[in-house]
């Protein structure tokens, strides 16, 4: 049973607790996955064209916006990679892990988790039908990539829920 939780530890830090070993292993692989951001498939997805047919605008866009976007993505990955060095055993739950990091890093975590999911999707050519499957063959790299996308997605969803707790109507 997964008891994964993302919550404020205090006013300055966020704690991810109850990280199952399989997800902890995936998180340790994040830097390696993020390094694939410059592969041709991943590049096309992470740096999409701003128009569907205007080559001039597209070309100018990539010259102007491309470096800034890449800096944002690389920086988010580096922040999360540093935070993950603090991944330790969660003593409250057997065979689980936890990590705490500054609250200012939340955006970087969301960015890096989503980057990794998109990169895995592109590198393994995962489509909508494969994302909707619930059976995974452990011998299939494609199935294992889909499983990783789902697990990292579950963690990302917890970050989104944490963000929604700060909406005006949800504040006490």
């Amino acid at each position, binding site marked *: 049973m997964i008891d994964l939780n993302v919550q404020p530890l205090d006013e300055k830090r966020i704690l991810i607790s109850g990280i199952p070993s399989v997800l902890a292993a995936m998180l340790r692989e994040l830097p390696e996955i993020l390094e694939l951001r410059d592969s041709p498939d991943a590049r096309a997805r992470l740096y999409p064209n701003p128009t569907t047919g205007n080559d001039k605008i597209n070309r100018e866009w990539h010259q102007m916006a491309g470096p800034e976007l890449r800096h944002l993505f690389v920086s988010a990955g580096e922040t999360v990679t540093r935070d993950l060095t603090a991944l330790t055993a969660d003593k409250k739950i057997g065979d689980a892990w936890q990590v705490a990091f500054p609250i200012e890093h939340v955006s970087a975590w969301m960015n890096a988790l989503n980057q990794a999911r998109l990169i895995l999707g592109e590198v393994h050519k995962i489509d909508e039908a494969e994302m909707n499957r619930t059976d995974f063959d452990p011998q299939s790299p494609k199935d294992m990539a889909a499983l990783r996308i789902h697990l990292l997605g579950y963690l990302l*969803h917890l970050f989104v829920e944490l963000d929604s707790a700060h909406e005006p109507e949800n504040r006490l």
Partner: protein
Amino acid sequence: MAPPIETGQPGVIIIGETETKDELSSPWNVIVHNDPINLMSYVTMVFMRVFGYPRTRAETLMLEVHNKGRSLVWSGGRERAEHYVHQLHSYQLLATMEKSAA
């Protein structure tokens, strides 16, 4: 977006006239396209953050992206459209802009 053209003469550049009055006045649509990976909850959050939309509107647009494959999420001047597309790309959404037919 046309860059100035260097003439080689000190202090003299030519500014290209690339946008007609019609192009500047026609609204541009910002379109978000469906993709199999991005979470529905994440897309909703991005619409709320980027456009300041209330949750109900953000969810309606997200569902339109999911069910129809694309959704027109904003319409207006070209500079703002470019700004929003850039913001949406920074959140890793598939977004494009196109000049409105109207």
